[in-house]
């Protein structure tokens, strides 16, 4: 059963579709839709980020910056310039893609913590610009997005409509991502993580692989930024903040590095958990931190891979130290 779930096209996708289709049966109000929609948005971003972090092993602590740029592009172009939302969104995505492409080469030459620093700095610079250029962005108070998102007369206005839109996008993106990691390109991606030299000497242009996946994950973040700006109808520079970037990375790692379904689980947990923990009031943050630590300590590979290994009966005993 779990094998089937874990195998890329062998049913996992089907389960996801069924889940998305049936979930609304359990929803009692719009708030439940709202949480589900936010899970969906996060999941889409995190799947992209996981391609970069989990599969290619290139950490980024700056992706919230790309997301925010997409959001602001949509807000500004539809708001002040009356562009149609889709065009604004695509323009934002192209812009973010170009930016990501330009910075990718020098940034991705860095490794490990240095890469983390560089991407973090990049995200911070974006956040600072958004915060400072208040004429354009509304500054720290943010700006409203009045235009509803729509294509060719079809508009997403109600939570229900948004739910199906986000659900459909998620399914498509998960399908594409699963395809990708199971393709030669995906193998190259994993090899960049495993050993860059090894990949190079069999003909993998590791730089271009890294740049591609960096740009793709940035563009996906930008698209989601645009969509969520229309959905929430409000954006602020906090979208670009370092915390938001970290939050996205935590989702990827908690759910499981190099696991597409893990990204979904991570996004779901990290979106829902704070809603649940409000019950703890003053101890909310303490409990949240402890939960996070506990998950990573008991499931160091992340929830989905660890559960998978455990259920498949192949979990390594702790203490078995592999040669580095």
């Amino acid at each position, binding site marked *: 059963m779990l094998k089937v779930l874990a195998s890329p096209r062998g049913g996992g996708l089907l389960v996801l579709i069924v889940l998305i289709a049936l979930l609304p049966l359990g929803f009692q109000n719009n708030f439940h839709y709202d949480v589900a929609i936010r899970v969906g948005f996060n999941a889409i971003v995190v799947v992209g980020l996981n391609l970069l972090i989990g599969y290619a092993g290139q950490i980024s602590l700056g992706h919230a910056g790309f997301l925010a740029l997409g959001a602001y592009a949509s807000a500004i172009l539809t708001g002040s310039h009356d562009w149609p939302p889709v065009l604004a969104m695509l323009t934002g995505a192209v812009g973010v893609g170009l930016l990501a492409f330009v910075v990718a080469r020098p940034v991705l030459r860095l490794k490990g913590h240095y890469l983390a620093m560089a991407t973090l700095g990049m995200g911070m610079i974006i956040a600072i610009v958004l915060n400072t250029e208040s004429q354009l962005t509304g500054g720290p108070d943010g700006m409203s997005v009045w235009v509803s998102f729509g294509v060719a007369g079809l508009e997403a206005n109600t939570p229900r409509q948004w739910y199906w839109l986000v659900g459909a996008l998620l399914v498509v993106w998960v399908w594409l991502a699963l395809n990708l990691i199971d393709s030669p390109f995906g*193998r*190259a991606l994993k090899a960049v993580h495993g050993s860059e030299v090894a990949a190079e000497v069999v003909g993998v242009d590791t730089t271009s692989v890294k740049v591609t996946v960096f740009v793709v994950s940035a563009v996906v973040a930008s698209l989601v930024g645009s969509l969520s700006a229309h959905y929430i109808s409000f954006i602020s520079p906090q979208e670009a903040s370092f915390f938001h970037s970290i939050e996205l990375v935590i989702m990827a790692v908690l759910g499981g590095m190099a696991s597409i379904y893990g990204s979904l689980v991570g996004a779901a947990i990290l979106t829902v958990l704070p809603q649940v923990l409000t019950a703890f009031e003053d101890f909310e943050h303490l409990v949240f931190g402890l939960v996070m630590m506990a998950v990573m300590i008991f499931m160091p590979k992340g929830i989905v891979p660890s559960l998978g290994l455990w259920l498949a009966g192949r979990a390594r005993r702790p203490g078995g130290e592999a040669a580095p």
Partner: protein
Amino acid sequence: MTLLKVDDLSKEFGGVHAIEDLSFVIEPGTIHAIIGPNGAGKTTLFNLITGVYTPSAGEVYLDDRPVTGKAPFELARAGMSRTFQNLQVCLNMSALDNVMLGRHMHLKPGFVSGLLRLPGVVRRDREARQMCAGLMDFVGLGNHIHAAADSLPYGALKRLEIARALAAEPRLLLLDEPAAGLNSAETREIDAVIQKVAERGVTVVLVEHDMKLVMGISDHVLVLDYGRKLAEGRPQDIRANPDVIAAYLGTAHAFA
């Protein structure tokens, strides 16, 4: 036409001359061994030839065209492939996937085609999978095909690298100590592998300290010492060369 020509090559690491003014040629279709004391510069030479390092001076020619400074992946696409003395295996992948990686450039690894899983991708992948499983069998890893790379013992990892290099179908194959960590019986298997590969027309360059292997299969031996050429010639001449014996082989060595 020479396949590989190394011309006045030098590499310096902060004052240490790992390779100094080295020149030699490798003719296609031969098995070429490079031997020499530890630290003579053999691995560095491989790194220079395959583009992992850039030389401090000198040129490398492939098919008479200068390729100095090209990236390793470009050289791989030009027909070079290699294994590493310090293993470079992707431990986050399965053993078979590591070998499949070797087929990378033969699989039209586009981003979009991968994303959409076009039929051609699926077909080529399936064929490659079969071929790579066959290669693993060929190097003696038949019973490890579905293992995770990080669970393989040392000796198996060495062979895995050979299989990966072969999967790339190179014209020029560089092996850095392929027999290290293998016992005599296993070395003989590798010996056979190398010979079969050479018979298919692949030029093999071999760095190895196992003299039985080197002397048995190579057509030509190059001896390095302190980054310079100490001797060059046919195996039987090298074996008798007093300089080589003094610097490398040792008199006590009773090689068959």
